């Protein structure tokens, strides 16, 4: 692995790509820590510290790499872009014009990408306005009474803030596209990855301050977790497939390179994100329906004691079950055995020993059912691991804790993809040693 990196750096144009990507990431981190104009950095820090332990925005903050609660230039992160691409994707189904564009190949796709960018700007304006409004009213940081935007009485300051954050989002969008285009790996995923990884030192220091033995234990545990996540992420069941559509003279049958791969974790990180968002819902409902003064009723008490509190066994079990459920749900909608079997039949492919059509679909269903069970259990366990270590991290930091749960799943996923891409680019270039 290190050898691969060394030879990657020894290949001139690959080295250029890697250095370019690193350069972009540095720019991104700079922007994420640089406070926007008009924001009092000192007061923001103070408030953020007070906020520690509350989880209102933790998922969004995770994606923005902590920039949100810094009220920095890149406060919005790439969420507006992700939202915009999802919206445009959905619109292609609804708006005939978009559907037409999608079918017109690259030229049409280019136009759709352009629309996505416009929409991102629109969303960024909306979100930054919302964010600034929250900060001005002092609601962003809950109880904190420090003034995060000293000049908030001047409309000019606020407009500059909105414009800066919107511009920041467009810059992030551009940086991401630059990486995808000229660097290595998928730009958007790498930026998310960077945001998460950037928190590791701070979290590590927190733990180290508490006790150095715990710190050593956490490091060991983290390494074990990461290693096992990598192991399981790579695992797949390969169902051999044969094609009998052409007549070829000397054909070797029973080759091992044509197969249908089913990953153990076919669903990726999405079930975890779904499950945690769903768990926040009751809390959100309570907050919205209830003024701060009124008596807590039975519902809000229940939510507060069992669902919000991450060390509660109710919370942990519900979370785990939701993840298992969403894994099945997600695999169910993205992998359709009937359709897969039909597609194979259409191209003259079949699984040896099994007839095409219905029997093939039945077989795929059977294998899929078997493989999804360990997959979902694995996802659930990785996700709840940090809840079991809450003593170390403090309540509410489940999502942000960089050694477990969502963060590790995302980081390992992006990391594996990127390394694989470097590796394959390396292979395409390195034919040396061949003639010798």
């Amino acid at each position: 692995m290190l050898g691969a990196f060394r030879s990657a750096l020894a290949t001139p144009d690959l080295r250029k790509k890697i250095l370019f990507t690193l350069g972009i990431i540095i720019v991104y981190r700079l922007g994420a820590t640089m406070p926007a104009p008009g924001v009092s950095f000192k007061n923001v820090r103070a408030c953020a510290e007070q906020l520690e332990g509350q989880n209102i925005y933790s998922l969004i903050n995770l994606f923005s790499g902590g920039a949100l609660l810094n009220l920095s230039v890149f406060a919005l992160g790439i969420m507006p872009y992700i939202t915009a691409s999802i919206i445009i994707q959905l619109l292609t189904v609804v708006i005939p014009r978009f559907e037409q564009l999608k079918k017109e190949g690259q030229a049409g796709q280019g136009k759709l990408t352009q629309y996505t960018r416009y929409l991102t700007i629109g969303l960024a304006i909306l979100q930054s306005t919302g964010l600034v409004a929250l900060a001005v009213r002092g609601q962003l940081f809950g109880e904190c009474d420090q003034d995060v935007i000293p000049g908030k009485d001047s409309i000019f300051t606020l407009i500059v803030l909105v414009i800066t954050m919107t511009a920041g989002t467009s810059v992030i969008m551009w940086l991401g596209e630059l990486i995808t285009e000229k660097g290595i790996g998928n730009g958007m995923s790498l930026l998310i990855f960077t945001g998460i990884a950037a928190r590791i030192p701070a979290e590590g220091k927190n733990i180290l301050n508490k006790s150095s033995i715990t710190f050593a234990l956490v490091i060991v545990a983290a390494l074990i977790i990461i290693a096992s996540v990598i192991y399981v992420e790579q695992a797949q069941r390969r169902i051999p497939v044969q094609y009998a559509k052409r007549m070829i003279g000397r054909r070797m049958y029973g080759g091992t390179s044509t197969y249908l791969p089913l990953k153990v974790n076919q669903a990726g990180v999405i079930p975890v994100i779904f499950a945690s968002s769903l768990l926040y819902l009751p809390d959100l409902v309570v907050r919205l329906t209830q003024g701060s003064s009124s008596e807590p009723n039975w519902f809000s008490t229940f939510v507060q004691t069992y669902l919000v509190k991450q060390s509660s066994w109710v919370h942990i079990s519900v979370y785990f079950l939701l993840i298992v459920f969403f894994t099945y749900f997600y695999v169910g909608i993205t992998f359709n055995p009937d359709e897969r079997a039909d597609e194979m039949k259409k191209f003259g492919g079949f699984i040896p020993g099994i007839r095409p059509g219905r029997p093939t679909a039945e077989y795929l269903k059977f294998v899929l059912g078997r493989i999804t069970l360990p997959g979902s259990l694995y996802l659930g366990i990785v996700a709840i691991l940090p809840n079991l270590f809450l003593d170390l991290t403090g309540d509410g930091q489940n999502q942000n804790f960089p050694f477990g749960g969502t963060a590790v799943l995302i980081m390992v996923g992006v990391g594996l993809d990127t390394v694989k891409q470097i590796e394959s680019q390396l292979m395409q270039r390195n034919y040396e040693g061949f003639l010798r």
Partner: protein
Amino acid sequence: MARFKQRMRRFAQKPASVDLAPFQALLKDVEKHADTFKAFSDEELTAHAAKLRDESTDTELVALTREAAERAIGQRPFDVQVLGALGMLGGLVVEMATGEGKTLAGAMAAAGFAIKGKRVHVVSVNDYLAQRDAEWMGPLYRLLGVSVGWINGSSKAEERREAYQCEVTYAPVSEIGFDILRDRIVTREEDLIVPEQEVALIDEADSVLVDEARVPLVLAGSTSAEAADPVIADLVKRLRQNLHYEVDDEERNVFLTGAGSEAVERALGEIDLYSQEHVTSTLSKVNVALHAQVLLHRDVDYIVRDGKVHLINDTRGRVAKLQRWPDGLQAAVEAKENVQTTESGEILDSMTVQALLGRYPTRCGMTGTAVAVAETLREFYELEVLVIPPNKENIREDEHFRLYATLEQKEDAIVEEIKTVHETGRPILVGTLDVAESERISSKLRDAGLECVVLNAKNDAEEAAIIADAGSHNRITVSTQMAGRGTDIRLGGHEGEDHDRIAELGGLYVIGTGRHSSSRLDDQLRGRAGRQGDPGGSVFFSSMQDELITQYAPDAEEPSEVDEDGRVRDKGLLHTFEHAQRVAEGVNLEIHRNTWRYNKLIEHQRDLLLKHRDVVLRTDAAYEKLGEKEGASEEVASEAARKITLFFLDDLWTHHLTFLSDLREGIHLRALARQNPLDEFHREAIPAFNKIVPESWELAKEKYEAAKITDDGYDLADAGVKRPSSTWTYLVHDNPFGSGLEETMKGLVKMVRGQRR
């Protein structure tokens, strides 16, 4: 005004073509030289050309060739031809309208390159044009002291070698490719034919570089040929659609249903089609036979003539003499039509037209329609387009197109239109989409009492005569795309004797019976009229049942208002056709890009292997590696060692190609595990390739040591080193099976759409 528009486009950063202005500025320079050269005698001209070989500018070269052309061909090239030649010398693809003298402009550029010391291959689209152009332009080259040669399909090896030694060689693209492929299996250095490639000047550049780029040229060697089974061919004829088999919407795939495979199993004697023993033979045969039976239509995809199956090139409408279908499909079609099975064999090596042209360090070209594919040329060939204005303003009147609800109404309207126009005596060219349609239209015309001449792949021998008279009074010519490109239709017969009378009537009237899948083909067809400032007119007829719509815009709405005769005037629907063309072009581009992504690796591997092969071929590397042989002199042993090594290298490459095509077939499945199929392809293909050379040495050593080699001779065939007894070349008809990857994408779209309903 036009220039202002150009500026605005450039300002908006969407230039489809490079700026013409700098080239126009060069015209003055060319003019400056003109008088000097005019004063030269012929001998002085030749001598000056020789002098320019050391040092010259493009303008001086072009001025010289212009003068030479006037003396040798009897035509003084117009400014636009000079511009074209300058553009090509600058490595651009020039777009020149029909009848503007592309051949001469091309020859000027080729001569210019040759004087600059480069070897030029003028790549033409067929045998006939290669010979005609080389002979026509011969005097021009001779006056400039440039040697010129040509090659066609029947040239002998010696003639080929000679032609390639010339500074300018005219040859069809396929022949150059075949020569290169044949070179890659020779075992003696002196058998090599093609020298290093330097400049390619491509005629009909869009057709060669875009439409035919994906066509693989194949070198095959005879092996035990597996003939298609007539029993199976008979059997699939009895199967019924939707009961025994189904066809997908795009008509690209056909597959057996459960009932279908049971029927086949019963008919073949209660076998299990999907058991190991039958998968490799019977099942593939049934699938291929079914494809031949259901998806390939006689008189659309191929014709049967003299007991042989001939493929039809779908963008040109001509018989593609050298083309075959791959992977047993050819034999299956032959079995379907009950004709003699032609020899088939093992693919020794193949390369695409794109890879072939990619080997030239300098490329340029000319065509009538380049701007529409400017993006593609830039992406795949790093070529820019230069648009040359016509010498005389084009005054052709183009009517957009007329839309009808049904196919029948459309054809009735076409006959009606022809009748009306014919009464005036104006010549009419009817461009149809395939052979079957051309015959249908002509019989309808005859029923209506209109005499017409038909030109399609079936009577291509009469082509020249039919085209020569297509512009004469009272003539109705019904043709396929054959007449749509490259043909020059003169008004008033082949001598132009009746020119003025026809011009008075409005010139040639072109009627397209349907929009093509690409707007370029539409433009080429329209371009048959209005040549060199002549008057002319064109119109297209379309119906909502045209294949373009049913295949590429199947969701098009029903026309809300239809006139009594079926005419549709709904503006929105008119746009649907442009949309369908864009989809078709987008799909083609996507397939092109995808094929190329995979081919790039194969080309790279071939290059590396050939470099290694070249070393073995030209040196004693094999002898040094395999060691001395007792009882044989160094010379004999070295030759034997070389032959054995080359045999295994070629054999392993053939295996490797088979492996890669197998791998490619199922690699799209990897996307299911969110892996990038292209990366996965590399991951499997590269280690396999890296094994070839070591393995070849190992096998060669084994054979070399076992073989009896003495100074009296040796027989390698005994030892199993047996090269194919004969080889032949052909082109593969491009990708008839479709690829799973594209289909998966479409499947996703469909899934989404299905949920909507």
